[in-house]
């Protein structure tokens, strides 16, 4: 009965009601907003993470459009069984350029956080067209239309400018010439034997710093990725995105002192 009495007090006093609502919203707001103030100190300091190239951005948009996140997560959690299956646990730094992030919470299919480099481009194409052609027990739907549809990328620079705006890390403003050369970069990455030196240098400089050693080159899938060199398809973009997932940080090069910093 006491509960009801108190409730009546709030219900019949508009100021108390407003105060109660205010306190509730403040608590919710604090829990949601305050962690963002310290985000730069909670994200690990790790070398190699870079924003996505234009082709990868386009592929990521297709990944989101097709709802891949409905069945695939992109976060290797720090548990032994996950480490042994997928590889090193995901770092916050690895998804700091993801808007929105694709961590996911449902795994009908396997986690994709470290799928980059695990399969050949040709395998991805065949698997996306008809998953059962390579994995007989798969229940994933086929996406054959991706190989048919030319990629619409004439607004990719505007897309990247938007990502730059929503990002706390000024993603593309710090990558020299990324937005200005977006369309050229996209075409260079997806065309066989194209001159990709400017594209690779741009993103490697961001990943490893302008003073990087010659062999410090960021990983990206180059050339004709879908087996059809005549046209840049949505399949090219999606494969480029999948092949970079989880490959930016070289964990063999991360020393134990750095790792100890992650455990604070």
């Amino acid at each position: 009965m006491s509960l009801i009495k108190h409730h009546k007090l709030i219900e019949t006093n508009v100021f108390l009601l407003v105060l109660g609502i205010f306190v509730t919203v403040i608590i919710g707001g604090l829990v949601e907003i305050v962690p963002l103030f310290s985000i730069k100190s909670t994200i690990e300091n790790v070398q190699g993470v870079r924003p996505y190239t234009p082709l990868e951005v386009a592929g990521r948009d297709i990944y989101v459009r097709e709802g891949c996140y409905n069945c695939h997560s992109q976060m290797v959690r720090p548990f032994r069984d996950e480490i042994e299956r997928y590889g090193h646990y995901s770092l916050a730094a690895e998804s700091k350029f993801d808007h929105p992030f694709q961590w996911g919470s449902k795994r009908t299919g396997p986690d994709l956080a470290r799928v980059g480099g695990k399969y050949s481009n040709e395998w991805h194409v065949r698997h996306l067209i008809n998953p059962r052609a390579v994995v007989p027990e798969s229940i994933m739907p086929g996406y054959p239309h991706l190989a048919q549809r030319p990629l619409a990328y004439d607004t990719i620079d505007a897309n990247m400018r938007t990502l730059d705006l929503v990002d706390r890390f000024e993603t593309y403003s710090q990558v020299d010439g990324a937005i200005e050369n977006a369309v050229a970069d996209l075409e260079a990455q997806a065309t066989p034997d194209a001159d990709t030196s400017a594209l690779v240098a741009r993103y490697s400089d961001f990943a490893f710093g302008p003073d990087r050693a010659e062999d410090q080159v960021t990983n990206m899938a180059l050339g004709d990725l879908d087996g059809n060199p005549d046209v840049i398809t949505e399949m090219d973009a999606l494969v480029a995105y999948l092949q970079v997932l989880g490959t930016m940080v070289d964990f063999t090069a991360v020393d134990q002192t750095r790792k100890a910093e992650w455990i604070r």
Partner: protein
Amino acid sequence: MAEHPERDEITGRYTTGHEWDGISELNTPLPKWWVWVFYISIGWSVLYTIAYPSWPVMSGFFGGATGWHARASLEDSLAEAREARSEWVTQIAARDVPAILEDNTLRSYAMRGGEVLFKENCAPCHQTGGAGAYGYPTLADDEWIWGGTPEAIVTTIQHGIRNDTDPDARSSEMYAFGEWELLTEEEIDQVAQYVYDLSHGEMNAGPGQDIFVAQCAACHSPDAQSPGGEGNKDLGGPPLNNRIFLYGGTKKDIAAQVYKPQLGVMPSWSGRLSDEDIKQLAVYVHSLGGGQ
């Protein structure tokens, strides 16, 4: 409160005292146990945020009274797993694959480990049990493109084939004889017929054989002058004198491959799997059917 709750005449239950146009609200309180669980949960969550990493503070976050950390606890469980496996894994690390194959106990341990690793990492292309698929070699037979000795299998797994991430990847590139106009269509037809016959056990002298010796034997035969097409594992040229074909064994398939070959890619695994894992995989693959 001033007014006492009234009893509803029909149901005999108390009302909340709220009444709209003669319709009053019955008081149906939540069960006592539910309310208590609710209160206890609130108390528990407060204790939880004290015990475990939770609140953000100026430089980072409050680490929790227990000092528990997900990543530290992971290191512990990984160390525990390493400890549990160390008896076998150190033996695997210390020996090369042929030595593991000779030791029955160690071999069966490596077989079990290799089987699990194979299912996760290799079966998507090579299929369960190494059955193979179009474009992905069968591992359960005794035909090997890059060699079926334990050492050769280890090297192939470590570095992969034709990937652009590992500088030591195995690599061979068959010419696009048609697309690059190295052979005319007639010549491609002749050599395809020769290879087709070869795969059916017939070696027919003629223009097809001449083209084969001139263009193909360097990689597809152990001796550059041999018309037999027995394969060359050093150069990754598959044998052509049997009906095992990666991209189809009809004359049309063979001609298509001569015109513009499909070249398979295998990723490099040395960055993804440990040396001991790769050795276990090699033991498993070697034992699938045709280890040499």
